[in-house]
């Protein structure tokens, strides 16, 4: 396992470096001059000399290779540069807003797993009954319903019943956990509906696949309790593909945050990302994409390691 972990870790480093290089060059081909846009926004009409001076001050007039070296040297030290709009360090800007997004992402994942496991298992065990059909309709719906629309429907239902939305500036998670979780419950449900549907569908089909195996018949023939057959022999093996899906769908979840934060007006990095595009904040966009891509790569690594821990065949093959 140690060898496998080391191998996978070594593979991650070049991927991360390549991601950083790609992001650096991608944002540099953005059309329009962010400095010009900013100055025109502030002073109306501006002359080219002022734009040049401002660009020089922000380091944008340096040759590309110098900018690139500065960027790559700064990264390992946690320095991602400054925002072109607010001129504050990106680590500070993003740091202030990333906590709520991370919290929302993990809460949504937890909620999805809690919803998906009983649904997926029940659908598999009661296959072909009306119960299975109802669950299948719910989960197929989850794949088709846009998360932002689902969020809007939730807001509509809350306004119609309770008359107000949970206030979003409540205490932090550690100060008042219940109030905090209640606030995030609805956005987490909105972004997690699709997630839970995918997990439930995967779990259903892998349980069905496993239950058709010979060793399940053997376990039953031995006279084991059905509960033990299903939990110890069935679920354990059906969990493998499900774990992969939980990891892979996390990427969709991050994407879902971009729209859900907009609907529920949550000041997280999803909303920040859309603002960075709208304000042409090149460095902010660079920092955010880098953070999202890095977290995605690391989560994939975690899933691979978990998978290898659950299934010894994977690490022997590697």
């Amino acid at each position, binding site marked *: 396992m140690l060898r496998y972990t080391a191998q996978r870790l070594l593979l991650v480093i070049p991927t991360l470096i390549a991601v950083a290089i790609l992001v650096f060059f991608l944002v540099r081909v*953005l059309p329009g001059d962010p400095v010009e846009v900013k100055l025109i926004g502030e002073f109306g009409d501006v002359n080219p000399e002022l734009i040049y001076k401002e660009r020089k001050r922000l380091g944008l007039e340096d040759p590309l290779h110098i900018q690139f070296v500065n960027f790559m040297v700064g990264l390992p030290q946690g320095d991602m540069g400054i925002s072109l709009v607010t001129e504050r360090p990106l680590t500070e800007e993003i740091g202030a807003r990333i906590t709520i997004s991370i919290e929302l992402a993990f809460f949504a994942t937890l909620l999805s797993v809690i919803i998906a496991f009983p649904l997926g298992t029940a659908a598999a065990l009661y296959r072909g009954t009306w119960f299975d059909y109802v669950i299948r309709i719910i989960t197929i719906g989850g794949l*088709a319903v*846009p998360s932002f629309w689902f969020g*809007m429907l939730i807001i509509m239902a809350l306004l119609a019943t309770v008359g107000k939305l949970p206030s979003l500036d409540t205490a932090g998670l550690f100060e008042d956990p219940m109030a905090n979780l209640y606030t995030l419950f609805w956005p987490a449900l909105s972004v997690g509906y699709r997630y839970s549907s995918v997990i439930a569908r995967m779990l259903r089909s892998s349980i069905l696949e496993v239950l058709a195996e010979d060793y399940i018949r053997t376990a039953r023939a031995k006279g084991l309790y059905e509960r033990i057959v299903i939990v110890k022999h069935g679920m354990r093996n059906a969990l493998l593909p499900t774990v992969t899906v939980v990891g892979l769908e996390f*990427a969709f979840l991050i*994407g879902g945050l*971009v729209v859900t934060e907009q609907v529920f007006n949550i000041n997280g990095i999803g909303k920040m990302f859309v603002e960075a595009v709208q304000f042409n904040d090149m460095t902010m966009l660079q920092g955010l994409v880098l953070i999202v*891509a890095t977290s*995605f790569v690391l989560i994939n690594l975690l899933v691979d390691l978990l998978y290898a821990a659950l299934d010894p065949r994977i690490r022997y093959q590697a």
Partner: protein
Amino acid sequence: MTVSAPTENEPKAEITASPEQLKAERPSRRTLFDFIKQQPLGTIGFLIIVILFISAIFAPDVAPYDPEEVDFMASPALGGGAPGPEHLLGGDAFGRDILSRLIFGARTALSIGFFSAFIGCSIGAIIGIVSAFAGGKVDILVQRGIDLLLSFPIIILAILVIAIVPKNVVFGIDINVIIAISIPFIPKCARVIRSAALSIVTLAYVDAAKAAGYRGSRIVFRHILPNVVAPYLILITAYIGQAILLEASLSFLGLGVVEPTPSWGLMLAGVNSDYYITAPWMIVFPGLAVTLAVFAFNLLGDSLRDWLDPKLKL
């Protein structure tokens, strides 16, 4: 390179089955009728898609109003616009007929959905086949590139492309939105098609064709391509639904299609918080349209997979 004819000493394949038996064993041609019989859910999806296509093509004839016609008396801001005989699905903030905007919006959704899925899957398929057929260093290099692109969540990559590609509308279709949506599909399709092509490349008849000295292009077109058509079609169908969802999300964020083009996502973007209670029809119907379209393509995609290639894992 020349291939010698088999000599007397070489074993020959013996034909043991009669022509009648061979005919009976040959898989029967699968027709649309078989699909309808075997895949009822897929047929429902297909029917919904046909209805959407017809209403998109004949939008000016089907829609009761001009989608851009402003009628302030039908605006919820002035207390009007509720669904009724005049406006079946109600009016939006400017009093424009929602049903007509939905029908014209189908044009945007389907054209962007179809073109992005087609472009993304086709480029992905070409990359996948080349990677599988070339093998060796080319394959490794392409796979690392695909890994790299896959480390960006779809919507993040799409928004990044939107920011880079200048806005460009041709025949009322937003080309930049199509490019932005198709790029995230390329690595996903390339991966699936590569694995489908790889299973063919290792087969004996491809080796035989190589040994017979046929050019790479002939092997690709005659032996590999026909075998990846099924996963390719399944991918396109599944990704049209994804693309419609993505277009709606981008337009909702104000980064996709812009006014006055009718788009389902854009219709939801224009909803003021006051209308959540006073004009719920402005929220319910556009979202239902997106859901129905994506649902139909998902059903058709799933059924096509079961019908054409049950072993394919997508």
